[in-house]
Each structure stands twice: as structure tokens, then as C-alpha cells.
């Protein structure tokens, strides 16, 4: 199997030029039609996640550990990722979005479910086969201060992936490759011998991105890549990521809690709550036509940097906190904080599907939403 993958990989190094053209076209189209059809036109998904589950066991006892329960960090998540698109995943802390990232990277073993990369289930791979797949899926971490080894030079950090995958860059070529990467992310190639502490937060995040790009991956998973940065630097890094996406035809999974940034960068957005996907759709469907009460509450709580807009905007203030994932409520997990909750919500778990009233309609509200009483409500725009 590993052999096969490597053969698959070979031509990919050359493909960026060809696929570049496609992306440019796709993008001019997206700008015009605001990305609605984009995922449909992109054909086969590059990554398919099906019913992904991760339960962390809770144990008691010291010598004879007995499992007494489980933290249901991810509890049945499904989504697709298409070539060249950005899928944003939003949710509050503890909703399982970072665990999804770790599962996709195979840094955690999934309890159940499948992750198909180009049709192949990668969630159960190990050893050489896993190594080969990982080349194509890379990660950029949140904290640029702790995700770079302080004792390694920038050249060593960015060049380290080449030690693991020597086929990408022959030994003698590495220095040049690293300098090229530094240039691509907007850092001076002469900085190759410097250490991470000599850089600012934004520059460090660029180093992290350069490391992620080193192996020419197809998918980059970004876990809160800009949340540790200052506002003025955030915009620089976001613009860089968008430029790189066009240039290398990358697919991003962009995990963040900042809903404005997610809207800016994403083609499609998934909203997670307590380990499940509450609603998923294009950015316009989610932000302008949300149907799940949780999405509506989340969006309405975002402070908008416009004092005039605040007066006309509807705000839903949720009461209470997110319940513990070790003991989630029965039925719909959002029901304890939901103003629409009825008996049905406690008994039946709503499935992620296009809600009944919108089925067959071509309105923007017709997208997948896991609520028994899904209803469209605009909370983002001033009335």
C-alpha cells in the first residue's frame, strides 16, 4: 500500500502548476457567486470524515484501573473537504474542535469512525503507510511560542520534515529549499541560522507555516493559527495563508473560535457543540441564514466593531455554561441552554440533515442543521 501511495505522490510535486490554473479560475468564480456552488463543482472530496468518535476513558483506582465513564470529546462527526477549499470549524472551548484536528492528523487514535483520504481509510493506518499519508496532511499549531523548539535554528525547524521524508528534498538541496520556503512565507532567507526567540509572534507563525508547507502537502490543518497574534499582525498572516492556498492549491481545515476570521477565510463552515456538528454549510448559509439555535446564539454574541450596528442587532444571551462532555444531556446536547427546547429534544437526538421545512427548497436556509425545530433567523445584520 505504501508503495502505491508513493507512486501517487511522485507526479504531485509537479502538479501545482497545472492545478494552479484551476484554482485561479475557481477563485474568480467564487468571488462572483460568493462560493455557493464552489464545493459542488470541485468534484470528489479529498478528505471524507464519517462518524468520527473519540472518547477519552475516565478511570478509577490506581493499580486496577477501572473505566467508570468517558469524556465524549468527539461524538460522531462527519464532513467532507474538497480540493482547494477552506472548511472552517467553529465552536466554544471543549466542543471537540481541536480533538478533531488531532484525529485527522492521526495524533490520537479514533475510538470509531473513518477518515478517508482520497478514498483510503487513514484512521487505522500505522507505520510506513501512515508516514506516507502524513506527508500530505500537515498541521499549523496555535501557539507560535511553544510549538517551535527553542534550541533549533529556523533552518533546522523548517528542514526537519525532510529528515523524515528524504525523498522530497535530497540532502544537498535542503538549505536552498528552506530558504525558498522562508521567502514564500515572507521572511528574509538570510534568517536561516536564527533561533525562534529572535522573532516576533507573527514571524514565528510564519515559520510554523513554512514548516507545514515543507513537504508540499495537499491539506493543512490549522488549529487557531492567528488567535495568539495582535490584530494588525493577524491580518498579515491571514492574507499570507490565502495567498499560499491559491499558489499551492491547498485545502485548509481552519479551526478557530473567532467567527469573523472564520467567515473571512472559509468557503464552508461547520459549527460544533459538545462533540457534534450542529450545523454545516457555506459561509453565507451559516452566517446569513443560520437555522440552528446554537449558531444563532453564537453569532449574535459576537461583538461587532461598529457601535451603530449594535443598536439594531438582535442579541441572544445564553444562560449557563457548556455541559461537561463526560456527562452530556440526553437527546440534543444543546437543549439545556436552548430557548426552544421541548420534550422531544430530550428524547430524540436530532440528526444532521436538511431540516424538514426547507427540504427541496432552493433557499439558503436549506443546509444541514441538527435541530428538531430549525428555523431561519438573521442575527448578524442590523434590522
Amino acid at each position, binding site marked *: 500500500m505504501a508503495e502505491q501511495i508513493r507512486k501517487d505522490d511522485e507526479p504531485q510535486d509537479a502538479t501545482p502548476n497545472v492545478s494552479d490554473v484551476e484554482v485561479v479560475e475557481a477563485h474568480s468564480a467564487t468571488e462572483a457567486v460568493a462560493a455557493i456552488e464552489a464545493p459542488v463543482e470541485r468534484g470528489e472530496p479529498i478528505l471524507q470524515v464519517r462518524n468520527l468518535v473519540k472518547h477519552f476513558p475516565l478511570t478509577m483506582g490506581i493499580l486496577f484501573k477501572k473505566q467508570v465513564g468517558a469524556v465524549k470529546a468527539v461524538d460522531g462527526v462527519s464532513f467532507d473537504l474538497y480540493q482547494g477549499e477552506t472548511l472552517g470549524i467553529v465552536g466554544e472551548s471543549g466542543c471537540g474542535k481541536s480533538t478533531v484536528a488531532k484525529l485527522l492528523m492521526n495524533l490520537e487514535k479514533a475510538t470509531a469512525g473513518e477518515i478517508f483520504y482520497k478514498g483510503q481509510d487513514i484512521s487505522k493506518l500505522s507505520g510506513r503507510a501512515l508516514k506516507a499519508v502524513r506527508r500530505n496532511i500537515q498541521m499549523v499549531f496555535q501557539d507560535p511560542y511553544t510549538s517551535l523548539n527553542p534550541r533549533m535554528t529556523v533552518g533546522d525547524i523548517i528542514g526537519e520534515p525532510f529528515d523524515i521524508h528524504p525523498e522530497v528534498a535530497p540532502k544537498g538541496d535542503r538549505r536552498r529549499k528552506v530558504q525558498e520556503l522562508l521567502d514564500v512565507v515572507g521572511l528574509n532567507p538570510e534568517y536561516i541560522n536564527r533561533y525562534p526567540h529572535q522573532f516576533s509572534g507573527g514571524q514565528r507563525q510564519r515559520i510554523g507555516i513554512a514548516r507545514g508547507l515543507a513537504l508540499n502537502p495537499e491539506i493543512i490543518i490549522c488549529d487557531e493559527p492567528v488567535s495568539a497574534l495582535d490584530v494588525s499582525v493577524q491580518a498579515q498572516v491571514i492574507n499570507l495563508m490565502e495567498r499560499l492556498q491559491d499558489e499551492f492549491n491547498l485545502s485548509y481545515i481552519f479551526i478557530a473560535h473567532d467567527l469573523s476570521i472564520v467567515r473571512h477565510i472559509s468557503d464552508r463552515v461547520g459549527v460544533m457543540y459538545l462533540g457534534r456538528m450542529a450545523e454545516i454549510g457555506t459561509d453565507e448559509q451559516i452566517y446569513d441564514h443560520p437555522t440552528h439555535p446554537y449558531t444563532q446564539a453564537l453569532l449574535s454574541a459576537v461583538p461587532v466593531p461598529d457601535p*451603530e450596528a449594535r443598536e439594531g442587532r438582535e442579541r441572544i444571551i*445564553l444562560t449557563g455554561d457548556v455541559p461537561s462532555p463526560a456527562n452530556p444531556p440526553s437527546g440534543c446536547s444543546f437543549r439545556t441552554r436552548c430557548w426552544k427546547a421541548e420534550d422531544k429534544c430530550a428524547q430524540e437526538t436530532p440528526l444532521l440533515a436538511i431540516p424538514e421545512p426547507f427540504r427541496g427548497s432552493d433557499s439558503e436556509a436549506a443546509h444541514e442543521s441538527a435541530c428538531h425545530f430549525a428555523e431561519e433567523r438573521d442575527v448578524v445584520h442590523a434590522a
Partner: protein
Amino acid sequence: MTIIEEAAPVPAPREGEDAPLLEVRDLHVEFVTREGVVRAVNGVDYNVHAGETLAVLGESGSGKSVTAQAIMGILDMPPARIPQGEILFQGQDMLKMSAEERRRIRGRRIAMIFQDALSSLNPVLSVGYQLGEMFRVHHGMSKKDARVKSIELMDRVKIPAAAARVDDYAHQFSGGMRQRIMIAMALALEPDLIIADEPTTALDVTVQAQVMDLLAELQREYNMGLILITHDLGVVADVADKIAVMYAGRIVERAPVHDLYKRPAHPYTRGLLDSIPRLDQKGQELYAIKGLPPNLLRVPSGCAFNPRCEKAEDVCRTQLPELLQVTERDGTELTGRSSACHFWKETIHG
């Protein structure tokens, strides 16, 4: 979300327009380090009236928190020193007071809420004990009475089942609840002024909205002054009456909240506003302020923002712009507005 809307248009009652609760005048704070003297705050002026919310906006290293710590009197000196400036609280210069006099103001008259509630609370004492400490130390209350007061306070900040949770420890509360306890602690002695340093940065948006609402509600009820230190332009738009934007230890712009967002008078403010993506529409490429915030050991000469500014000319590199009154085209003064830019006219009038 009707509460804030009602209050926003009508400024809260003030005891005489010209008697601010707190006035900071030409404050300078330096840190002596091995590499040299870091000028963290370089002549900051601002004031807050009772019932008013001043937002101090700035990126990391802009001096916004150091100013607050100087007001609170919790700077470590050395390495910090205050070579110049006045901090007038109800007309009295706190910098000239003895340590004992300041101690009596701190907590009782001016209280502070920090960003990270988990590290600000003592992990080995129950929250009830820590809340009660305020009453025991400042009012000499008995343990029993202090405990009753603690429960009352926890009720006040809407912690469910306060009586049952009073003996819990900080780690047993969620982030939002911990921040409520911090607010309760700040409110305990009914201070005149609260300084909140990034009070909701560590919280999720839905919880952030709850906490900000609570803070605004309590502020109105007690008619307190509030200094809100933050980097989040969204939070500021929601709650502030007026804003001071800081950059490299100086205030670069001052304005009432509506004016600042509508017509910024400093290129840095404009750049910040342009660089945040919008929630209600899909934007094109983001505007990005080029470069990085300056190293405070080597602040650029002239206007500190000049290397990053698109409009910078020779005068910006040599001459430090003063914080001057901003006027309309016809010369009428815009109340409460000032800008430290040589070209503020071009910036505001386009």
C-alpha cells in the same frame, strides 16, 4: 440586549462635568533592564468620570496594562520607575501618597479585574474564603459575617446556587464563573472605579457576552467609573463611552466611541479598523498594517508609527506629533476628540 442600548445614548449622571473621578496627567513609566531603559509609557493623559466607561485600546506592548498597574500601584519598583506624571484620584495625587494611604484606596476605592481568573485566585483557598477576606481585612468583620456577605456577593454576580458553592475552590468553577468571582471580589467594597484588564479575552463568545453584560449592569447600578483595557475592537464598540488608542506608550487618538469607528483621525486606528474581518459580509483581501509593533528599546524617532504608516512623510520621521484637538473642516471643535498625527486633517476628512 436591551440593557446596554438604553444606557448608551444617555451618559450616566456625573457629579460636575469638570471633576473627573480619575485623571492621569503626563504619566511616564520606565523599566530598567540589562539592555537599557524601556520607556513603556511616554506621557499618557486620560480621565474617567463616575458612571463612565473609558476603553483603552492597544496591541501588546502599547503600554495599556502598565498604565493601569501604575494607577493601581501594583508595579514592581524597581525595575519600574515613574519619573514623571500625576495620577489624581478625586483630586488627590496618588503618586505623592504614602504606601499606607494607597493601600487604603486600593481594593476599597479602586479595584481591578484581571484577565486570567484562574491564576489570580488562590488555588488552595475556597472562593468564599477569598471573597470574605475583603470584608475581614477592610471592615474587620467576623468570619461568620464575612461568609454571609460572600454568598450575597456571589448571588449578586449571578452564580447559581451560591450558598452551596461558597466553599468550592477555583478549579471547580468554569472560566465564566471564575471571572464572575473576580468581578464579585472587585465589587465587594463597592469601589468608585474599576479597572478591567482584558476581562473577557480568555472566555468564549457566549460567556463573554454574559460577563460583559453583568459588568455593565453592575457599573450602572453602582455608578462606577470603568477603565476597560482591551485589544478587541468589538468589545469596545459594545460597551465603551469613549476610547483612547495607545501605540508604543503614547495615546495616538482619543474619541467618543461612535466617532472613532465612523471617522478615525489617526492612520493607526484606521488601519486597525480596516484589518478586522466583518461578521456580516464576506470581504475581499484584508487590509494589513505592514511591519511589526516597535521594540520599546528602539522606538523610531518622530512618530513611532511612521515606519508602518502609508502616509508618512519626512516630518513624521523627525518630529513627534502632539496629541491635538481635532476639528471639523470649518474649524468647529469635535468634543472629546484628539489625534497625534501630523496629517490628522487628511486622515479624518479624506
